[in-house]
């Protein structure tokens, strides 16, 4: 399976140019964060990827097919920033409708599993009008997962969620990555992006100003500061291996004063690219 591929994407509204040539790849099993100031074009990019907007120039392919291809839509999940639907419908009825639209096998069974997964089994009988913002976000997440999508587009999925809800979304994203889904996460919450994304793209004035890898496929990059001020940078396979590396340095006679996971300073990059 190929992932999401964007080449030379340009989009303008009348005289206003919003996207000025975006190149982007999201591979299966990769979570890519999209951050940038308001008006940078994040929502426009997401809308183009979902086939809601038609690009003026450039090419978007998802698994080598056009973005608005119906079989591709069946494999795509989308969480909007604000979930809106007929407020009289119950959570269960809403999810059943979404499952039938997506032509899921055993829709009722899938709906019940998802309601349990997003902690809304108890509230499934309630109409959406009685749902809090956080509950709407969670049911929005559930409808996006209804067909076990290969491509997941999330627009501010943690907005309005309490800490439990944020952790739930984080777990779900990790599960989706593990399953092999290509995920694009649009978020203003830099800490959240840093925790869940493999790579982050900084969008500014219609262009990808910077791309930063947060997790390397080969392991976790760490920086060990020694007593004399020297910094040893290396990549370890997993968190347990960090202790092993520190022990090895101490046994060789070096004094270790600090061990940190080496990560990009998203705040700093955000400021410099905005």
């Amino acid at each position, binding site marked *: 399976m190929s992932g999401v591929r964007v080449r030379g994407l340009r989009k303008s509204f009348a005289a206003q140019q919003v996207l000025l040539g975006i190149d982007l790849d999201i591979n299966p099993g990769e979570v890519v964060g999209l951050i940038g100031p308001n008006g940078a074009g994040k929502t426009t990019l997401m*809308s183009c990827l979902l*086939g*809601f907007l038609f690009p003026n120039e450039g090419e978007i392919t998802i698994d080598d097919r056009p973005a608005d291809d119906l079989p591709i839509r069946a494999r795509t999940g989308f969480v909007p920033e604000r979930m809106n639907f007929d407020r*009289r419908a119950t959570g269960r009825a809403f999810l059943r*409708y*979404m499952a039938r*639209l*997506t*032509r899921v096998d055993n829709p009722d069974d899938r709906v019940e599993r998802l309601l349990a997964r997003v902690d809304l089994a108890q509230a499934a009988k309630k109409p959406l009008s009685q749902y809090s913002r956080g509950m709407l976000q969670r049911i929005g997440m559930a409808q996006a997962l209804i067909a076990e999508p290969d491509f997941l587009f999330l627009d501010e999925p943690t907005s309005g969620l309490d800490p439990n809800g944020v952790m739930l979304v984080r777990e779900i994203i990790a599960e989706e990555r593990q399953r092999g889904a290509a995920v694009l996460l649009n978020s203003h919450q830099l800490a959240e992006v840093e925790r869940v994304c493999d790579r982050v793209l900084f969008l500014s004035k219609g262009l990808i100003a910077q791309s930063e890898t947060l997790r390397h496929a080969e392991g976790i990059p760490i920086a060990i500061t020694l007593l004399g001020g020297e910094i040893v940078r290396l990549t370890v396979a997993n968190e347990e291996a960090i202790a092993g590396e520190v022990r090895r340095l101490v046994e060789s006679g070096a004094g270790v004063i600090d061990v940190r996971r080496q990560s990009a300073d998203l705040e700093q990059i955000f400021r410099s690219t905005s």
Partner: protein
Amino acid sequence: MSGVVFRETVRRHVRNGLYVVLLVVIAALALTCGALGGPSGFWMGFVTLAGVILGCQLIGPEFSSGTLQLVLAKPVNRTSYLLSRYAGVVVAVAIYLAVPAVFDVAGRVFVNKTSFAKEMFVAPLNTAIAYLMTAALLVFFGSFTRSYLNVALYFLTQTILYMTGGALSAIETGSFAISPFFKKHPEFHDALRQVMRNVFPSATQEIDWRWMLMVVSNAAVVLLLASLVFRRREVPYGAD
């Protein structure tokens, strides 16, 4: 056509409290009309109005609320979605005609006014056929507008056509400088009348197959235009 969207559209209407209340009110009016031997056109006028209210909810409000984007992110063909929504609303309005028609007939039977046989079925049928065009126009206007602007455009078009017709009549009968021209060329007024008959058909009291065919084919053309527009419509979310 998407059966899922069609069923959801019908379900959403018939489970709406306001829909049920209106149905009861119209059925009561129909029963009263029938019992008193009054004209059926009285309660059918309410059905036409209710039909416009239901039809104005097609597409536009869904776009503004973001529901449309949620649905279009699923594997749903846009034309199929549009036609299914249309069919759902037509069925919801057909229920408004069918149920009160039964009450109307019941009222007439109850007081032994037996002139219901043909007329009582023709009038609701013709109103339903005329509604095919009304709903098609509301879908067409909804295919490129937001919120409830489709109903505003519907009434604006109707008003402009009626006002133009009125102005032409006034010019023809008056003594303006251009009056002789329009008296000599009645084809302008005839053409306008023809446009009005095509765009806003009035239900007749008899079975007229030519009229029925004209309305159905006009509605089909309008739906085709609506689907062409809607296929190319951009639906950015978070638009409103």
